[in-house]
């Protein structure tokens, strides 16, 4: 009883104990915050990487191909058995995309990925990163009417039609201009003829007459030219005239108001730029192209002698995984389309080769073991090319090991901080024991056993540890909860950006508080507090009562 009473009283009356409590509190809070943030970063990053990458990827090195994927798929199914949940085939080829922005052609290099609409999302996390809510539910490569994220602004079919009608208006104006010029020229010619022949022919001009009283374009006139340009051709297959017209102008077959090229989904980083708005002084997102715009892609054909292949695509959506590396390189297309334009389909057998096969396994499957199994199966046979078989960790090894090293070093540093706190407690306790020498003598004179005296200081250490740890946990958890606000506050105070979302894969600082970690930190801090009080407590217990009583 006296042990408890005294240790509580010491805790309440010794200000020096507060220093120990504060050091424990700070140590615990720091550990919780750092571990939560690191844990958040690592987990978020890993889950993103793991989601985007398949569990195991079997790919042909370079631009090589895996012929007859169906056979490979069935063999993989045989090797992996029940562990295997889903598989999908991919074509991966570097290429260029070209699009028009503000009247200029922009070309960027991309990694074109041909994905199987039906199976790709079962293997790799893909749809959640799309910006169209319909495509997030069911993946397709058609342009949508609605459902695009507000971030993109105006896009989709309405945007495409507006753009097209603008284009046609411009075309109509230009056409009108052209006709006026030719009309003027004709009038001039007629005048000259009249002048020479002395009589008017009175014939109608070859083109429709459009009165142009002034240089300013009349809207009605533009509309009528436009309507004329768009006037429906008699599109009946039996009409030789119309067939003739179609052959002459193939653009008539493709109406951007109604039609789209094969869809392509671009990484958002390929399309957006952050530009300074001079009015607000803040950076704003500017899209060079939007869903609804057309792009053209250039890519090498497959086979022995690669030739550049050019194709038109319509941008149907953006892919924003927040992994900048991916967002700035990937362009997704339907697998079959990419196979066809690259010439990957065997004209004899009709079998299309692929670049890689991606596999998703049952939760908790041992990926390393499966990888080795697959590797040994394919390496053993001369039938196969030496495929590159990697787990998602293998693929991102440099990044993951960097994160691991960071975590290890951070934990070592933090441990040193806690050790400093531990020595602080040790020093404080020695001082308290020296200060309390007389009390120890008194207690011993009153019959307190050495173990009792010792346990006063041990329980003192424990209660210091408990109070410090408790406060540390509370402060740490509050800090973690408010970390983004705190980061903003620090940014506001210092004017320097604490967390730059463009540097990382996340919009804000991710945190994950794991209860196990908090328990370990609490346990560790309590242990250090008790350990630090053991030596002083032993010293107190060994003190000779007579000498302790004499102590001044």
């Amino acid at each position, binding site marked *: *009883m006296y042990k408890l009473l005294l240790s509580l009283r010491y805790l309440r009356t010794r200000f020096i104990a507060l220093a120990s409590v504060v050091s424990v509190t700070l140590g615990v809070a720091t550990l919780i915050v750092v571990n939560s943030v690191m844990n958040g970063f690592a987990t978020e990053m890993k889950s993103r990487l793991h989601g985007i990458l398949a569990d195991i990827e079997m790919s042909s090195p370079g631009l090589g191909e895996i012929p007859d994927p169906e056979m490979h798929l069935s063999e993989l199914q045989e090797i992996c058995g029940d562990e295997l949940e889903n598989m999908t085939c991919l074509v991966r080829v570097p290429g260029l995309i070209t699009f028009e922005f503000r009247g200029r052609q922009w070309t960027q290099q991309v990694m074109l990925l041909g994905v199987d609409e039906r199976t790709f999302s079962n293997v790799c996390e893909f749809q959640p990163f799309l910006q169209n809510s319909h495509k997030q539910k069911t993946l397709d490569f058609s342009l949508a009417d609605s459902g695009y994220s507000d971030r993109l602004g105006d896009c989709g079919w309405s945007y495409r039609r507006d753009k097209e009608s603008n284009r046609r208006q411009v075309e109509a104006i230009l056409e009108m201009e052209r006709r006026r010029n030719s009309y003027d020229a004709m009038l001039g010619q007629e005048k000259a003829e009249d002048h020479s022949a002395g009589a008017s022919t009175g014939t109608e001009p070859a083109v429709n007459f459009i009165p142009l009283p002034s240089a300013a374009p009349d809207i009605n006139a533009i509309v009528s030219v436009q309507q004329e340009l768009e006037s429906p051709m008699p599109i009946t297959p039996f009409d030789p005239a119309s067939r003739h017209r179609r052959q002459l102008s193939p653009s008539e077959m493709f109406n951007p108001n109604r039609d789209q090229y094969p869809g392509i989904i671009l990484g958002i980083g390929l399309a957006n730029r952050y530009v300074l708005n001079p009015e607000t002084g803040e950076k704003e997102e500017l899209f060079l192209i939007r869903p609804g715009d057309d792009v053209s892609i250039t890519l090498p054909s497959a086979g022995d002698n690669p030739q550049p292949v050019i194709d038109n695509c319509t941008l149907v959506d953006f892919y924003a995984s927040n992994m900048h590396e991916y967002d700035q390189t990937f362009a997704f297309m339907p697998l079959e389309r990419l196979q066809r334009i690259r010439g990957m389909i065997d004209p004899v057998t009709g079998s299309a080769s692929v670049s890689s096969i991606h596999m998703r396994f049952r939760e908790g499957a041992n990926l390393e073991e499966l990888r080795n199994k697959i590797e040994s199966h394919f390496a053993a046979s001369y039938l196969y090319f030496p495929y590159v078989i990697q787990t998602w960790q293998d693929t991102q090894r440099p990044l993951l090991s960097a994160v691991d090293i960071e975590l290890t070093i951070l934990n070592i540093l933090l441990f040193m901080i806690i050790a400093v706190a531990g020595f602080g407690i040790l020093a404080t306790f020695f001082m308290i024991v020296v200060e309390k020498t*007389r*009390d120890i003598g008194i*207690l011993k*004179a*009153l*019959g307190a*056993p050495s173990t009792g005296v010792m346990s006063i200081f041990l329980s003192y250490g424990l209660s210091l540890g408990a109070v410090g740890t408790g406060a540390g946990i509370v402060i740490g958890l509050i800090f973690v909860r408010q970390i983004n606000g705190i980061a903003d506050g620090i940014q506001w105070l210092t004017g320097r950006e604490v967390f730059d979302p463009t540097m990382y894969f996340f919009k804000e600082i991710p945190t994950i508080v794991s209860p196990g970690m908090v328990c370990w930190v609490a346990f560790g801090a309590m242990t250090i507090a008790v350990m630090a009080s053991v030596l002083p407590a032993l010293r107190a217990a060994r003190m000779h009562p*007579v000498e302790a009583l004499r102590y001044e």
Partner: protein
Amino acid sequence: MSTSEPFSMLKHENPTHVKAIRSGARAGLRVARPIAIRTIDVHKSYRRKGIEVPVLKGVDLEIPDGGFTAIVGKSGSGKTTLLHLLGTLDVPDAGEVWYDNQRIDNLPARKKDRLRNQSIGMIFQFYHLLPELTALENVLVPQMVGHGMFSYFRNRKKFSDRARELLDRVGLSHRLSHRPGQMSGGEMQRTAIARSLITSPALLLADEPTGNLDEENSQIVLDTLFRLCREDGITLVMVTHDDRIASQADRCVNLVNGRVE
């Protein structure tokens, strides 16, 4: 046998009278009372910087049960050391210490602790109260030490009542919740007396309890001490160098150069 006379004659300063009482008490006690404490050829020396300093050089002492025994002597004669040996706070280098027909100098530490806690009360010159605790809590400390948490908790009412009663008897019922720092020397010493008596010991060892007090407070403390010991029938052994106090004793032990004269 009346113990009230010596306590009440504190103001008389007649050396012959003191001597008479001393010898009379000595003669009377030897026959009438059992021996409470006995030391046999007790030696004790301290080692300071490699030099051994002998303090007690063969002390043979018999203190009878009941009454007031004063241990007198000059500074450095070993009075306090002897008292510590009697109270098992220290161990003699040679010789034996007996209390209540039991050798106590070689008891295991746990039994010594128990003995100090239950059977022997101690008062010191510098009061030795715990500064963090109130007067009441200080008085209760021996009970807290002697009982486990649960047993103390069960009996806390009883203990607290006893502590209040003792503080009342030493005249401090109005100072229960004061800390030692807020009390005068006399009050602190009276608190210490109450503390020493909380476990109802049979023996009270006092080490110059008035050495740090002025005359008036000394008087109050001594009166309190004598009264309580008399009322409760406690054997009081007091180390003092004050002849006036020694003259009140039933028996006086004069320590000269580490030996009983």
